[in-house]
């Protein structure tokens, strides 16, 4: 009997993903076999898996390899983004422990969906093939649709889930249609091969452009770039706060990573066509996000628009491209994860049970009632606003200098103007915290479990100390960029 030749595979390359999937399945089994006792422990199983996966990712840094018939690539670029995703997942798990217990939604499914979503992100960032990227994107998205509606009893959460699902499915359709056109023109789905074939053969270039445009729409939806941002405010506001924090960090980083890989690898020969589109997207995203954030009364909604604006800043780095632009994007994605999840952790604390206190005015007098919590919020908001010497400032600085370096002077000016607008709505929260008359009562003593304090401390470390000594992380980001 003749043996069927099997492709060369390296299981070691996907060891972090295997860890996450195995842990997700173990958590599901623990959930159904250990009934209601020790539910909190499931969070720590998930956290341990995130830790092990992180260790395995760090081990794989510096030794790039391509495996699974060139569909899967492990390099420093994917490693860096994977660490950002794991950081987001780990912080989310920690801040979920108390939240899910309070809301009565504690269960193994919650944590296993988080791990499955993280696995999807891993496959997205490591995908060297359109099919792998799409599969990873769907694994991530479907888990997120379920997580957005996880607070089943709350109408807003249901609404968030349905909206996210319908619009997400639409954007996936766009992306898949675009991919099929690129495949139709090039005849392959491997990113390197696509670049090689369309670089040599210009015959089907219009089909590739159309396909590339549709794929761009799919990615723009996932990173919530204007005008594909409509889902973001409703979903961010309605989803459980830890899930909102999670969605704003990891999935965005993963979508950016796949975006970079597809456009600066497979479609590099069309660079002169797509950079202007990304330029416009960046300006629109920053401006619309910041302007609408000014008038928001609900703090989760305000952070949703702020996250749209931040996607715009990152697109500035994408427009600039090259080693400088890419490493600035990677660095910004890292610190954005720290500061945004930290801010959402504080929103979750103040929101209390049922998320009833999520308007900006609920923060009135917080700086006096809980000085340390107020101080932490100030630090995180300063970082989000990009006030020196926080990490947020340096992140923006590197992004904008990358744009200047490539000669995009207007883009850098518009980005700088936008960060001035943003200062207004971040400072408004601080003004409310310290200068508005105190009306609410203090938070209960049990509002500050160790798990969430750890999240806030990590966030403060990332958004303040990383600004003062960014050296190591910046070097890591620089060595992780795809461009050389």
């Amino acid at each position: 009997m003749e043996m069927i030749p099997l492709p060369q595979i390296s299981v070691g390359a996907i060891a972090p993903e295997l860890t996450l999937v195995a842990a997700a399945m173990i958590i599901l089994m623990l959930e159904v076999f250990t009934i209601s006792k020790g539910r909190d422990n499931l969070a720590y199983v998930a956290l341990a898996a995130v830790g092990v996966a992180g260790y395995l990712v760090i081990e794989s840094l510096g030794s790039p390899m391509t495996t699974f018939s060139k569909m899967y690539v492990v390099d420093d670029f994917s490693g860096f983004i994977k660490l950002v995703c794991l950081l987001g997942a780990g912080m989310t798990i920690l801040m979920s422990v108390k939240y899910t217990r309070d809301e009565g939604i504690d269960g193994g499914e919650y944590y296993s969906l988080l791990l499955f979503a993280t696995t999807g992100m891993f496959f997205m960032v490591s995908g060297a093939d359109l099919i792998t990227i799409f599969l990873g994107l769907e694994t991530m998205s479907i888990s997120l649709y379920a997580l957005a509606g996880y607070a089943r009893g709350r109408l807003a959460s249901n609404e968030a889930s349905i909206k996210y699902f319908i619009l997400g499915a639409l954007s996936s359709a766009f992306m898949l249609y675009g991919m099929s056109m690129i495949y139709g023109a090039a005849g392959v789905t491997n990113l390197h091969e696509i670049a090689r074939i369309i670089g040599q053969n210009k015959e089907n270039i219009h089909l590739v452009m159309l396909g590339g445009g549709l794929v761009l729409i799919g990615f723009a939806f996932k990173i919530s770039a204007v005008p594909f941002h409509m889902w973001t405010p409703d979903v961010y506001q309605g989803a459980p706060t830890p899930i909102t924090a999670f969605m704003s960090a990891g999935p965005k980083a993963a979508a950016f990573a796949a975006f970079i890989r597809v456009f600066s690898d497979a479609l590099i020969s069309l660079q002169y066509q797509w950079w202007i589109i990304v330029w416009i997207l960046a300006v629109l995203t920053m401006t619309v996000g910041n302007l609408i954030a000014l008038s928001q009364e609900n703090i989760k909604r305000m952070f949703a628009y702020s996250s749209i604006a931040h996607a715009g800043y990152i697109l500035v780095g994408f427009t600039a491209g090259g080693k400088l632009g890419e490493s600035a994007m990677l660095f910004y994605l890292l610190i954005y994860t720290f500061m945004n999840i930290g801010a959402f952790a504080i929103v979750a604390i103040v929101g209390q049970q049922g998320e009833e206190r999520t308007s900006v005015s609920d923060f009135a007098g917080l700086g006096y009632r809980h000085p340390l919590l107020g101080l932490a919020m100030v630090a995180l908001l300063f970082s989000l606003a990009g006030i020196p010497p926080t990490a947020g400032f340096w992140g923006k600085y590197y992004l904008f200098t990358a744009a200047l370096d490539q000669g995009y002077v207007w883009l850098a000016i518009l980005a700088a103007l936008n960060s001035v607008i943003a200062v207004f709505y971040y400072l408004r929260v601080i003004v409310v915290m310290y200068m508005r008359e105190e009306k609410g009562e203090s938070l209960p003593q049990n509002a500050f479990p160790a798990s969430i304090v750890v999240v806030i401390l990590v966030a403060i470390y990332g958004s303040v100390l990383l600004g003062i000594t960014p050296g190591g992380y910046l070097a890591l980001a620089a060595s992780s960029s795809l461009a050389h």
Partner: protein
Amino acid sequence: MNQYIPVLLMFAAGAGVAVAMLGLSELLGPKLRFREKMEPFECGENQVVSPKRRFSVRFYLIAMMFIIFDIEAVFLFPWAVVFQSLGLFGFVEMMIFILVLAVGLVYVWKKGALEWE
């Protein structure tokens, strides 16, 4: 592009025939219109119940699980055909695939999603 022109013509011819048939029967055919006949539901009979009924969510759960195991069968048949030429690797790979689905089955079973009451 030229090789696609016959396909385009085919589309046009197909659409033309369909439109012509519907249009001609609308123009020439005898018509008797009354309220029941215009109802989309039950085709000319008086409506007995509203078409907007609620279905138990269990139908969807069962349908979803059916699809999952249906797809498993789709993978199992070709695997069984070339089982020997795939060797040990193919066996282990498929066992892992089945294990993943089995975990899902155990989960829905223990959660009570398979009980009709």
